[in-house]
Each structure stands twice: as C-alpha cells, then as structure tokens.
C-alpha cells in the first residue's frame, strides 16, 4: 500500500512539474513564435501576391471576427492606388490541410494571386502546388463569381496532372476564401479605413 501511494505521488508531482514548466516556456516563447510564423510562412506568400505595395501589409495586419474564429487580414495598397487584402484559408480535403494565402482586389472584386503556405513533411502533398507556378497563376484575375472547383467537378481550374488531390485541396481553399470574402467584405472595408 505504501509503495502504491509512493508511486502515485511521484508520478503526480512529476507530471504537474513538467506541465508547469512547459506552460512557462510556452508563454515565454509565444510572441516570438508568432513572429517567426509571420516572417517565414506568411511574409513570402504575401510578397509573392503583392510584389509592390505602398504600405507594409505585415505591420498593418488586423483581425476580423468570422463566426467564432479570428481571421488575420493583411491589407495592401497597390501602386495604382487600388486597395487589396490577403488572408489565409485552408482546404481540408483528403490528403491533409493545404494552407492558401489569397490576395483579393477590393475595388474590382478579383483575385490578385494565391500562394500555398503550408510546409508539409509528407512528400508530394502540397509541395507540388508550391513548385508549379502555372497552377497557382490560374487563379489570378478571376472574379468572385468564378467556380473555383477543378474541371472534373465542373469548375474553372485545371488540375495538376498526377496531383489531382492537392489541386482539389487548393481549389477548396480558394472557394472557402471566396465565401469568407463575400460574407466579411463590409467588415474588412470598415476596418481598413
């Protein structure tokens, strides 16, 4: 019996201690981690979508409430004076999540460009979309009334050959972005001014 209690006490103390330690490390590194994610995953994607802006989309980012989730929005002012936003969505089709940064021109309601943000360790998934500029450039210039499904599903997007599944996940993410944009546009415009 004494041995039993001893065992339970040691295990409890140990796990409590480790939980506490981890919580402390987590809270110390939280801000830094967020900065790193911005710098290494989001910044390159935004740079790819808005090669030239008159402002700093990263510094001027703001959050918009979408149902119970906070959506991070990056505003961009283009050299020709029009306003644009970029935000990230994900296509959780089969093959796992593919994160997609979508840039939309607020004045024309058209897509400026999309970039895949997820870095997946599973070879093949997601990485193809990153390496294949012809695929992602199909989205550029398309209006908000376009069906972003792949052609096999009656949409307007040519799937990458040999990577149908990834193509579907990307088009799913684009469709989601369209829905979010249509729902939240008034809110986004309000916050940008």
């Amino acid at each position, binding site marked *: 019996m004494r041995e039993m209690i001893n065992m339970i006490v040691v295990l409890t103390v140990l796990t409590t201690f480790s939980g506490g330690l*981890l919580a402390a490390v987590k809270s110390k*590194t939280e801000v830094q*981690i967020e900065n*790193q994610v911005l710098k290494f995953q989001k910044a390159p994607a935004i740079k790819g979508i808005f090669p030239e802006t008159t402002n700093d989309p990263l510094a001027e980012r703001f959050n918009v409430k979408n149902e119970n989730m906070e959506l991070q929005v990056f505003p961009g002012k283009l050299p020709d004076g029009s306003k644009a936003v970029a935000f990230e969505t994900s296509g959780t089709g089969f093959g796992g999540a593919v994160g997609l940064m979508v840039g939309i021109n607020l004045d024309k309601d058209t897509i400026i460009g999309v970039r895949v943000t997820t*870095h997946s360790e599973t070879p093949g998934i997601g990485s193809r979309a990153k390496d294949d500029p012809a695929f992602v450039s199909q989205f550029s210039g398309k209006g908000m009334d376009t069906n972003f499904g792949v052609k096999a599903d009656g949409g307007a997007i040519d799937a990458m050959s040999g990577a149908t599944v990834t193509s579907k996940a990307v088009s799913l993410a684009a469709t989601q972005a369209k829905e979010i944009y249509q729902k939240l546009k008034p809110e986004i415009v309000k916050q940008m001014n």
Partner: protein
Amino acid sequence: MAQSLAKEFTKGLWAEIPPFRLVLGLCPALAVTKSLENGIGMGIALTFVLVCSNLFISLLRNIIPSKVRIACFIVIVATFVTIVELLMQAYAYELFLTLGIFIPLIVVNCIPLGRAEAFAYKNGPLLSIADGLGLGIGYGLSLSALASVREILGNGTLTVWGGIPAFTMGPDFLPFKFLLTAPGAFVGLGLMLCLMNLIGKK
C-alpha cells in the same frame, strides 16, 4: 573522477557512437540527413534532450520507484523534447520546418530512453551528464558525416547554417540525386555502417 568522466564522454564519440555502434535512433538518421545543416540541428536538439533528461533522471534516481520508472522516464524525456520544440519554433523556425515531425519523435528515438534505463538510473549526475554529452555529440557527428556525403554528392552543395551553401561543387558537377531520395538514405547509411565495421574490425 576526472578520468572516469572523460571515459564516459569519449565512449560516445567512438566506442559506442550512435547510430553505428549503438544501433538506436535510425529514423532521424535517415530522414534529416539531406543537408548538413539539418544533421547539425538534429544533433544539437538530441544532445540537449539527452543531457537534460540524463541529469534529471540521475538526480531523481533514488526517488523514482522502480515499478513506474519507465513512465517517469517518458514524462521527463517528453518534457524536454517539447521544450526543444518550442525553443526551435521561436528561434530557428526554418530548421523547425525542415525537421518537422522528427523533433517530437525524439521521445521515441530510443537513445534518451535507452540511456535513462541503462545509465542515468544507475549513476551519479556528473557521470550522467558526461554520458549524455558524449553520446549526443557522437550522434550529431555521425549525422553530420552522413549528411555531408549525401549533400555533396546528391546536391553538389554543403550548407552549414542559415540555408546558404558554404561550398558548391561548381557547374560541371552532375549531382547524384539518388542519394537524396529515401532509398539513397538507406543505402548510404548501410554503406557507412559497413565502412565503420571495416575500420573497427582491424
């Protein structure tokens, strides 16, 4: 004392160098050795975990009841692995992305748990630190060696830190891409093991 410390430290660098002599931790050795930078990063991460977990287990060895010792080892090792994961995310994000899932998998990489059971639970803190440091650095060296071979021959570059190649083979070099693929990793490690056996069996 100093002599036995040195002995525990150096055995990890040659006599029991993982993953060659002590055949543990093969998965990361195969997976992350595409470039030297990754090999070094993994070596540092493992050394940190190994030294910390060895130290704690050795300090607590009289308190931990032997019946639940494995559970306690797992908790301690997993705690330090998570700390490494968080720190890497905060200060070496690119490396964190490439090493990915292999950082949390240090928990089941067998080296920390194996050393806890075989060494730290039976020896004092100083000796345990020496043991962990030696084996960790040894593992890092093995990974770096394998990674150098694979990166130079497979990609024609050598990257030490920061993503910029410190050395390139020049435009005339035709990279042997096979070495960067999964089969190349298996064959490369197998041949390296053979080489180690050849040297050691003299």
